[in-house]
């Protein structure tokens, strides 16, 4: 089925380091969104980037979108232990409702 696919599946870093997660998709999109999920909780929207945008920032988050490569990246700078969570990208590929990937599980060690 059409959906974003994240990599890596898991990422473990030290507090203060940067974390980069990637997402790839297969067909045309209107927008790509990143969400965060703490263990056992609901998903929380982080940032939305439209197909005509290349980069967006929100606090310590930076998202890029390369439509020619059908990929996006989420960068979290100066990570904190509280950033430990799973991160999902979601796309509206082929103009369908948002589909999610399998997520990247980020662990930030204090």
């Amino acid at each position, binding site marked *: *089925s059409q*959906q974003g696919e994240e990599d890596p599946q898991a990422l473990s870093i030290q507090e203060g380091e940067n974390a980069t997660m990637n997402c790839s998709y297969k067909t045309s999109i*209107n*927008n790509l*969104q990143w*969400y965060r*999920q703490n263990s*056992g*909780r*609901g*998903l*929380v*929207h982080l940032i*939305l980037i439209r197909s005509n945008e290349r980069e967006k920032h929100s606090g310590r988050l930076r998202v890029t979108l390369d439509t020619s490569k059908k990929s996006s990246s989420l960068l979290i700078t100066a990570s904190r232990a509280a950033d430990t969570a799973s991160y*999902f990208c*979601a796309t*509206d590929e082929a*103009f*369908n*409702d*948002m*589909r*999610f*990937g*399998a*997520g990247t599980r980020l662990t930030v060690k204090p």
Partner: protein
Amino acid sequence: EPEVTQTPSHQVTQMGQEVILHCVPISNHLYFYWYRQILGQKVEFLVSFYNNEISEKSEIFDDQFSVERPDGSNFTLKIRSTKLEDSAMYFCASSGMDRAAGELFFGEGSRLTVL
């Protein structure tokens, strides 16, 4: 801050039983969704609902599933005859804008355990 509310938080049922999961979306939102997540796995789209009808449904959303907006505030997911593989976390989401524009606001989920 407005939020999506889901009940029950956890339901245990016997295989073959009917289950109804309840959601109260954010009050001025027009687009409603159900997703599910089997433990530790990806978040899977089930169905979207707009203007009192299903907009889109996935291959998972077969005849055993139905959705309803019985009044102006509730949005329910019914599983007619539960199977073991229906055990998952079910998330309701709502949006004020259509798929081309809006972020989704998720509830905290209803965990369904089918024995």
